[in-house]
């Protein structure tokens, strides 16, 4: 037998539950355009009749439950899709960092121009164009053009050397820009995200301890985790923790993961690199080697909280532990040199980062200078009249950055012929040696190696000097095209995953409109029920037991 006023309590719970659902529906509708918002719903359950399982339970009769209880709100979110999104985001972050860095390098080696003879805009390969100019001037001299002279050839050679210098400087500048992007923007952003996630963890835990479910805070945290996943592969694990009196709250750990989303493990099978452990977080730092190699290294600190350190820095953390994400992309650009990394320990070429193109230019400059100096020399042993030098005097240690013509090259310095009638005569007009130089640049074949004369040198190109010059922008173009295509694929895939995610967790106005109608009716019905109960009670209290009285 239920109590007299039970019905009122049931009606009240119904109104309360309907009001809560209406509020949540309103929350969903107003936040439908909020980025990262996950739609919420009320968890509602029927209340069981009191003490059904005890000594004093009601016996027999039609017993009813005690109304509806809106006991919790929850989000509609798929954790699996979140994981997939973050993995794909890391891949996309890496490819977009590579594409954004490599594409501007093309402007160092090629430019578009209007030709003298037409209005059509054409793409010009800078170094090949200067080489063509040099060869044209040499041709003019051999065919007896009236204003051809050695000084014109010298000017053309000077221009070519300067173009090498400019290209090498451009690559150095690009490298500095990428390092700045990494150290001044990417790494501080990552560190801010890590500390932000830790702070949110603390707030969420506090909210849960007080009984709330902190759904909005969770949305903010998910946004930060999504953004962090662009920089590195992460694995997110949420665990339940008992805080006493039967209450459990959640704690979040973020670990560094591999490309498949599995946390990197140490020898004992435990996650090796913890990025966030509830309120404690690690920080990433980068620095460059002081020695000539200038490799960039990333480091992971130990866990800290409010400035207090709980864990020592991860000394065993290496660049290779960042398997994808834009941090990994930056490190590849700065540290990896393609075929130039081949050695006894590294048998395959690594990624062709900025260093590859710098070294390729150096190899090209050295091969070109050595060829021309050898042809101009009148002795077989040490070239005695170098045309191209590293410092104006000596041909040792030539790089693309320091290539310059010899300061001894005034006039009457080019060896015009080496045939027996005119051997070494700088004024001979047989120009046979000039013709030899032309032949060497246009038809003879050379092999470019990564470390000429050393162990483990990789001969990566064989062809004419002209083809070697052309190889630089075309190999860059192929790399960039490949990276852009991968980036486009990654972006599409990310879009697909996000669309799936959105279909579950974003707000559908149609859906919420139906809910509005539904909960509104539920509230109206509960209110009507309360009115009915009220009338019943009125009848019982006022009208019962007055029969026979006045």
């Amino acid at each position: 037998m239920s109590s007299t006023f039970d019905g009122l309590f049931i009606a009240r719970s119904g109104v309360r539950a309907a009001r809560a659902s209406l509020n949540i529906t309103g929350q969903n509708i107003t936040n439908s355009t909020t980025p990262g918002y996950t739609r919420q719903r009320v968890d509602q359950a029927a209340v069981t009749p009191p003490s059904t399982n005890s000594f004093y339970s009601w016996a027999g009769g039609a017993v009813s439950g005690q109304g509806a209880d809106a006991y919790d709100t929850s989000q509609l979110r798929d954790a699996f899709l979140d994981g997939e999104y973050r993995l794909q985001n890391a891949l996309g972050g890496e490819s977009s960092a590579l594409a954004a860095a490599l594409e501007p390098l093309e402007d160092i080696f090629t430019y578009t121009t209007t030709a003298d003879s037409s209005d059509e805009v054409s793409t010009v390969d800078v170094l090949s164009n200067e080489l063509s100019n040099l060869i044209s001037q040499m041709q003019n001299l051999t065919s007896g053009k009236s204003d051809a002279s050695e000084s014109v050839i010298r000017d053309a050679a000077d221009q070519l050397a300067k173009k090498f210098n400019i290209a090498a400087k451009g690559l150095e500048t690009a490298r500095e820009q990428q390092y700045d992007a990494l150290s001044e923007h990417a790494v501080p952003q990552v560190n801010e995200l890590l500390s932000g996630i830790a702070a949110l963890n603390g707030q969420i835990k506090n909210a849960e301890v007080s009984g709330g479910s902190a759904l909005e805070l969770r949305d903010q945290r998910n946004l930060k985790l999504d953004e962090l996943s662009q920089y590195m592969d992460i694995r997110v694990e949420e665990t339940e923790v008992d805080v006493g009196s039967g209450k459990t709250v959640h704690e979040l750990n973020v670990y560094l993961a591999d490309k498949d989303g599995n946390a990197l493990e140490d020898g004992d099978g435990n996650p090796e690199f913890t990025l966030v452990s509830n309120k404690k977080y690690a920080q990433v730092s980068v620095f460059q080697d002081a020695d000539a190699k200038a490799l960039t290294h990333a480091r992971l600190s130990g866990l800290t909280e409010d400035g207090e350190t709980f864990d020592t820095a991860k000394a065993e953390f290496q660049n290779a532990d960042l398997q994808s994400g834009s941090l990994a992309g930056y490190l590849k650009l700065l540290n990896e040199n393609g075929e130039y990394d081949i050695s006894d320990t590294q048998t395959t070429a690594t990624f062709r980062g900025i260093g590859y193109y710098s070294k390729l230019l150096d190899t090209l400059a050295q091969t070109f200078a050595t060829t021309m100096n050898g042809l101009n020399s009148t002795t077989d042993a040490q070239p005695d009249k170098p045309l191209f030098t590293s410092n104006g005097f000596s041909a040792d240690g030539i790089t693309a950055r320091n290539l310059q013509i010899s300061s001894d090259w005034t006039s009457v310095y080019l060896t015009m012929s080496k045939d027996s009638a005119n051997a070494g005569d700088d004024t001979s007009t047989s120009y046979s040696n000039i013709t030899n130089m032309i032949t060497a640049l246009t038809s003879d074949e050379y092999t470019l190696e990564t470390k000429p004369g050393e162990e483990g040198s990789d001969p990566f190109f064989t062809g004419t000097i002209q083809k070697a010059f052309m190889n630089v922008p075309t190999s860059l173009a192929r790399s960039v095209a490949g990276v852009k295509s991968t980036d486009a694929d990654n972006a599409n895939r990310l879009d697909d995953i996000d669309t799936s995610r959105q279909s579950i967790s974003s707000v559908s106005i149609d859906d919420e409109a139906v809910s509005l109608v539904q909960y509104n009716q539920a509230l109206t019905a509960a209110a009507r029920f309360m009115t009915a109960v009220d009338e019943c009670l009125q009848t019982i209290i006022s009208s019962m037991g007055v029969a026979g009285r006045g």
Partner: protein
Amino acid sequence: MMSRYRSDVSDAFASMNIAMRRAYDYRAFEKPSDSPLAAAQTFQVHWEARLNADYRNNISNLEGANTTADHVLQQIATQIDTAKEKINSVVTDTANAQNREDIANELASIRQSMLSELNSKYADSYLFGGSNAGTAPFTLDADGNLLYRGLNVDTGLDKDGKVPTAASLEDLAKDHVYVDIGLGIESGATGQSAFDSAMPGIRYVGYGTDENGVPKNVFSLLKDIEGYLKDDSASVSELVEKLNPYRDALQSAEDTFISSKTDIGARGNFLEETDSYLEAIGENLSEKDNQVEYVDFEDAITSFSTQQYCYLASLQVGSKVLQTSLMDYLR
């Protein structure tokens, strides 16, 4: 759905922009990475077109020198002919000493103009200097003997009377100056793969002496004949006897001169033919550049129209998809 639609519309807009740009500059690629294969072909075509232009430039320089040399040698041929007639007139006519003196003087002036013609220049280079065209190839020593590049044309000895250590007259006559005109020049260029532009003077006017000590060089022959004509002591029959071997030598020197100078005409023809061939190649390269670096006018316009249509269609769809929701139908 909104964000998906948004990204799809911006993709359509970006594609339309690319097609629009292509429709007015007709370029197949903006950066080499847009199409690495087309870029590589473009650079190769540009390189070959530059080389082709160089070859044609060389040919035009060489043709100028060749034509001038042809004229000069033609004049010298005429002068040799004149000299021959004058010498014949001495021999056949019963000439007196006065006539001999006149003819000797005329031969001297012919020799002088021949010398200055042999030292003709074209564009700051001596035409007949062979591989050393910076200094005048023909000079006279103290005795009036002709020297070619410092060597006596009759004896082949240098100014100190010694056998030359570098090149001999024979070597100098076979002098080469190889110029690349696109015949496939290689290391160790030969006449097969390059054009020999050398015109060493002594190839035409002769050098050395025959077994009787009679010079083969036209200039020396005229000088010796002049010497005999000026010798009053000889009688006519003695003179004729002395002159006969020289007249024969002069005839064979003239024959040598004419036959060796025809190679200049042949060279001129060869240069002209090669130039026409290179012109055709140049046009082919220009055509090829159009194919790889640029897109067809029709293709570009059609593609732009298609992209524009796609973009407008996606805008129209959007207006139908995005507006209505259940909210519009509830009171």
